[in-house]
């Protein structure tokens, strides 16, 4: 009976974590695209490529964490301990996902700021104009 409880807990934990990761990654992928297209001045191919790379990194880090945090170091032999262990583990995964999500948003906004700065016109108006001799 013991092994059953812990294996079930692990399986439920994995299922919840993976579904959550996929959900967040897809949200990011879908909504980040518009942002990136703007950053790269309508170059959709480049935007899609960067978007994809970002999402891959997101998956790797999150699934890596999910996998590392799997082990439960104490006995799980009742429904109560199972649910408690599960809620703790899933809570941690949610926090990591949230943290990663904000890191991603920060990366997006930084990219965008950089690109708007790159295009920005001079901060002040000229004092006068003078003829320039070509050479």
């Amino acid at each position, binding site marked *: 009976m013991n092994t059953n409880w812990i294996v079930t807990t692990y399986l439920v934990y994995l299922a919840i974590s993976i579904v959550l990761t996929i959900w967040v990654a897809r949200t990011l992928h879908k909504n980040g695209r518009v942002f990136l297209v703007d950053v790269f001045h309508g170059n959709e191919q480049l935007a899609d490529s960067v978007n994809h790379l970002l999402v891959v990194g997101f998956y790797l880090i999150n699934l890596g964490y999910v996998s590392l945090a799997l082990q439960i170091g104490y006995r799980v032999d009742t429904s109560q301990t199972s649910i408690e262990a599960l809620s703790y583990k899933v809570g941690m995964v949610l926090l990591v996902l949230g943290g990663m999500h904000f890191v991603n948003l920060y990366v997006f906004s930084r990219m965008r700021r950089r690109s708007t700065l790159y295009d920005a016109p001079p*901060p*002040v108006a000229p004092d*006068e104009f*003078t*003829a320039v001799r070509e*050479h």
Partner: protein
Amino acid sequence: MKEMLVLYDPNCGLCCRVKDWLLGQRKYVDLLFVPANSEEAWYRFPQLNHARTLAELTVITERGAVYRGPKAWLMCLWALGDYRAWSFRLASPELLPTAKQVIGMISQNRTKLEGVGKMLLKTDEKRAKT
């Protein structure tokens, strides 16, 4: 805009140090340095009031837009990859008067400030030695 011309005072130690520092920075717009009132400056800008360029830093774009004094300093910042955001901050209505005052003060006392420049901004020769 690809490049801008900076007319600087070659006889001012502080200006030369600032120039060296600018040359070492990442840029959005290239900065070409030409000594103020030099033959090259006269050749490129036949109609410019060159006497004024000796008194204050002057930046001129490819199209002939002339920026003098504090505006020229802001344009130099604007050209730099890491300081463009600062050029906008300093050009905001709240900060521009202060920026103008500080820059004016530095310009007027540039010969006296050479020592400070020596301390803060190492030239390439010095960097090579250390």
